């Protein structure tokens, strides 16, 4: 199935389509990003920006920003959300993740701290109980005028669709690599131990435009970029 979809992509590939680069060990995809291109204009003309990367630790991204004199924070929220100590039950007895505990241990920053936040595909893969609380926290840690970039699937790619990490390799170019979880225990500031309990992340939902607008309703502006690889890029301003 993956080779069929790749052949389709080669036929209909536009400026935002992914290109496959065979690499030893794991396959990497190169992707043009209009949202990233727009954000690049911000940090190329500014100094001493404070950036938050919510994807997997990326040496490439860290190098990209520190090499330009900016500060970057790295926090892998998807992996943090797999902590089994977050499991709890709601009023109906349904198992959910404890968002209060999650936010006590993650995204702990002063208010109005960041100029740029990279959510990448976080909202699509994060547990339902955490999405709105996380977006609310991100609003508060962004500076007024600060920008957030997020990617959303435009259609259901199925439970086996890979979750990627994103590396910035150009002003509007990303390298995508499939995430493979490590089964390691790590301790957060409150002492909670985060342990990866799954072998990969599954697509949780597909947002439509209305859902996305509702999710980011507290932000002052929202811009959509639709790409040919069924990804909707969203750039919001606090």
């Amino acid at each position: 199935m993956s080779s069929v979809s790749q052949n389709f992509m080669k036929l209909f590939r536009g400026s935002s389509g992914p290109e496959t680069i065979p690499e030893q060990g794991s396959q990497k995809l190169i992707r043009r990003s209009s949202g990233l291109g727009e954000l690049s204009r911000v940090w190329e003309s500014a100094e001493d920006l404070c950036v938050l990367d919510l994807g997997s630790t990326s040496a490439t991204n860290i190098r990209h920003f520190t090499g330009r004199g900016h500060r970057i924070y790295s926090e892998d929220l998807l992996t943090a959300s797999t902590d089994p100590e977050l499991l709890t039950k709601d009023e109906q007895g349904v198992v959910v993740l404890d968002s209060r505990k999650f936010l006590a241990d993650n995204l702990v920053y002063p208010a109005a701290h960041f100029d740029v936040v990279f959510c990448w595909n976080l909202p699509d893969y994060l547990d339902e109980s955490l999405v709105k609380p996380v977006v609310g926290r991100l609003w508060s840690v962004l500076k007024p005028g600060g920008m957030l970039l997020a990617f959303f699937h435009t259609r259901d790619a199925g439970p086996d669709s890979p979750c990627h990490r994103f590396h910035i390799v150009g002003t509007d170019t990303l390298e995508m690599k499939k995430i493979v979880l490590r089964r390691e225990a790590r301790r957060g500031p409150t002492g909670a131990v985060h342990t990866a309990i799954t072998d990969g992340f599954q697509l949780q939902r597909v947002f439509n435009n209305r859902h996305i607008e509702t999710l980011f309703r507290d932000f002052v502006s929202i811009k959509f970029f639709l790409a040919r690889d069924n990804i909707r890029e969203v750039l919001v301003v606090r």
Partner: protein
Amino acid sequence: MSAPASGLAQIGKSVFIKGELSGSEDLYLDGQVEGSIALKGNSLTVGPNGQVKASVEAKGVVVQGKLEGNVQASDRVELRKSAIVTGDITTQRISIEEGAYLKGKVDIHRADVK
């Protein structure tokens, strides 16, 4: 994983230290340390079994194990692929291997780090 060089001060994996650790030579740490580590002008290596819960000040820092605390390195920080670091890093240069985990800030200062 790189083994410690001979002639290097070492803390083995069965050793647990709680308190302020300071020195004027390079240190290979494969045990547990809680508190603070000050090795100005020298290097700290946290081995694959190392579990450090301390603020670190050194010339160079190499992490293969777990480190929870802020790191100030006047020269360089290296996070190897098995590194798990929670804390802010301030240094002149940084190298992060694929697979390393970092939760915290990276701040590059070209001048001397205080």
